[in-house]
């Protein structure tokens, strides 16, 4: 069963792009963490949500207890009107269309 970590924040006025940029920079590290599957980041107005999905609860726990997760939350906090809220969920249902959500690897080099 997959697990998700949801981070919700409200950026201070004018800080949304900085917050998103910060998250994007950390993704290069996060995506190398064992068990990481994918992440979705979305925003509306000054609010943003990052949903990362993990192969199992042990992988999510290892990430959540890592300096990577701690530092991301610590560094996002000053950019937000309140500290971001983080929760974890067990993924109950995931459906994609027949073509698949992600583009398939068409067998090119690399």
């Amino acid at each position, binding site marked *: 069963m997959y697990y998700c970590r949801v981070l919700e924040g409200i950026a201070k006025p004018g800080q949304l792009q900085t917050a998103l940029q910060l998250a994007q920079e950390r993704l290069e590290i996060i995506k190398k963490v064992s068990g990481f599957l994918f992440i979705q980041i979305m925003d509306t107005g000054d609010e943003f949500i990052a949903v990362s999905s993990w192969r199992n609860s042990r992988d999510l726990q290892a990430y959540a*207890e890592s300096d990577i997760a*701690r530092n991301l*939350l*610590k560094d996002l*906090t000053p950019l937000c*009107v*309140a500290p*971001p*809220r*983080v929760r974890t969920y067990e993924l109950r249902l995931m459906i994609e269309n027949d073509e698949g959500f992600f583009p398939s690897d068409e067998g090119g080099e690399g």
Partner: protein
Amino acid sequence: MGLCLLFASLFSACTSSPQETSKALMKIDNVTLSRLDDRTLRVTLNYDLAAGVKLPLPYKSVLVFPLEPRGKFAGQVPTIEFSNGLIALDLEIPADAGFTWQDLTAKDACCVVSLKGVKDVLSSNVPEYERISNSVTVPLPLSPG
């Protein structure tokens, strides 16, 4: 708005219970206090559960007391789901909290930060607290702006 204030329920004038006990369930460090405005205090700290401590913790809730000993004031921390991590929350200090920032400038009046568990006391309406972390002394946060 105020996303995190939703779970940062506030407890003002939380006087220490005579029956307050202590258990070393976790270590806290890197504690910071900052005043966002005259009534809002931001608290951040790292926590690390002691070896062998199992989750969930056996308390109705866990409170952070950021302004002791003079400032009898606490905020509820989010549910602790992992053995270590960062706690960051904004606490709104009520106008009737029973102290002013000026009071906290007195020698040794502030700021000894610790976490306490609220015990489930069936036979009494008086909450009992159990200190569950070490105490960290930090400087009184500067006035905003």
